[in-house]
């Protein structure tokens, strides 16, 4: 094949338009989050005491933390799918959610008696958290990886990890209204571990699926 011939054929294909990765990501995330919410409704549903719980800070902070994580991870994803794009700002923005969590954990430390801390950290539902957060994240991770295939990530494993973080954050937010643990200690331990699991699955899948 001569390069001049290839150039002519490529130029003839100029009319083909591909939607931006951001648009792919938005559409596929909306669809996948709906699937995840349907799974949630079928398997779990919101906690029985939601009317009371929804008046507490701890209940809402689970959403604040997981959605901040998802949002900053989405920002990083949109940087990593563009070859040569600067991802530094997006990488720095990732500390927002952990920082937020650290502040709330510190304030809870001053309010909870030392004897109670371990009980709050371990909680009673960590098995459910480690099972359902990855499960509810799975459709979202799948959708995010499909959207990423329309991009051109030069670091596939890293892009897959960012997609996993995004999916883990959203999946955890879907799970949060079922979860009866409202302590930041629990959030910092089990939610973080569950999201880390999804992130490493994303990284492993990304390394295989995101070559272009």
């Amino acid at each position, binding site marked *: 094949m001569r390069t001049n011939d290839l150039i002519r054929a*490529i130029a003839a*294909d*100029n009319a083909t338009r591909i939607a931006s*990765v951001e648009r792919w990501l938005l559409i596929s995330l909306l669809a996948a989050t709906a699937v995840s919410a349907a799974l949630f409704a079928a398997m779990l549903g919101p906690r029985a005491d939601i009317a009371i719980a929804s008046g507490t800070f701890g209940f809402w902070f689970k959403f604040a933390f997981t959605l901040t994580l998802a949002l900053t991870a989405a920002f990083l994803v949109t940087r990593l799918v563009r*070859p040569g794009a600067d991802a530094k700002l997006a990488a720095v923005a990732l500390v927002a959610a952990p920082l937020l969590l650290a502040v709330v954990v510190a304030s809870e430390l001053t309010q909870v008696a030392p004897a109670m801390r371990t009980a709050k950290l371990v909680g009673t539902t960590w098995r459910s958290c480690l099972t359902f957060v990855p499960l509810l994240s799975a459709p979202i991770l799948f959708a995010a990886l499909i959207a990423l295939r329309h*991009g051109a990530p*030069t670091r596939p494993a890293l892009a897959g990890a960012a997609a996993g973080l995004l999916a883990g954050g959203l999946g955890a937010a879907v799970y949060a209204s079922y979860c009866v643990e409202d302590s930041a200690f629990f959030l910092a331990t089990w939610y973080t571990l569950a999201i880390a699991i999804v992130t490493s699955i994303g990284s492993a899948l990304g390394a295989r699926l995101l070559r272009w």
Partner: protein
Amino acid sequence: MQDREAEWAGLMRAALAGDEGAYRRLLNSLAPVLRASARRGLARAGAGEGDSEDVVQETLLAIHLKRHTWDAARPIGPWVRAIARNKLIDHLRRRSGARADVPIDGFEEILPAETNTPPVETRDVEPYLAKLPVRQRDVVQCILKEDISIRETAVRLKISEGAVRVALHRGLAMIAKGYRRDL
């Protein structure tokens, strides 16, 4: 160097707005620079320069299939360099049997001035042309090898121009995929 990249950016914007002529000028202007950069990258990695045209073609295909990932508000140079570097690494990995680390430090810093070395023909991709689905193969054959227009191809193959466009796009994507087969 800055002027050249500003010109590329202008041509790419025109191409994205539908100007096929501008797109061809862009690709023709990129090719010799990519060629010089591929030769240099291969030489630096201790690989033969004989494969440089494969790298050039693979890079051009990637630029084409991923052109929606260029942010038109940003300079085009870093985007082109990142793609060229990525395709060179893919090529070296394929040749060296999935060796993870490829010594091409500094490759991404600059694109060299173009050289006048004539391009060679590549053979790597021929087996994939033959293996394309029939319609894609016929369309690619007409447009790529026989240099006839989309409209003439449609008349000759007795299919619509839209079908020719779809087959051409899929065919190019399949050729790019053929390059990636061993990764």
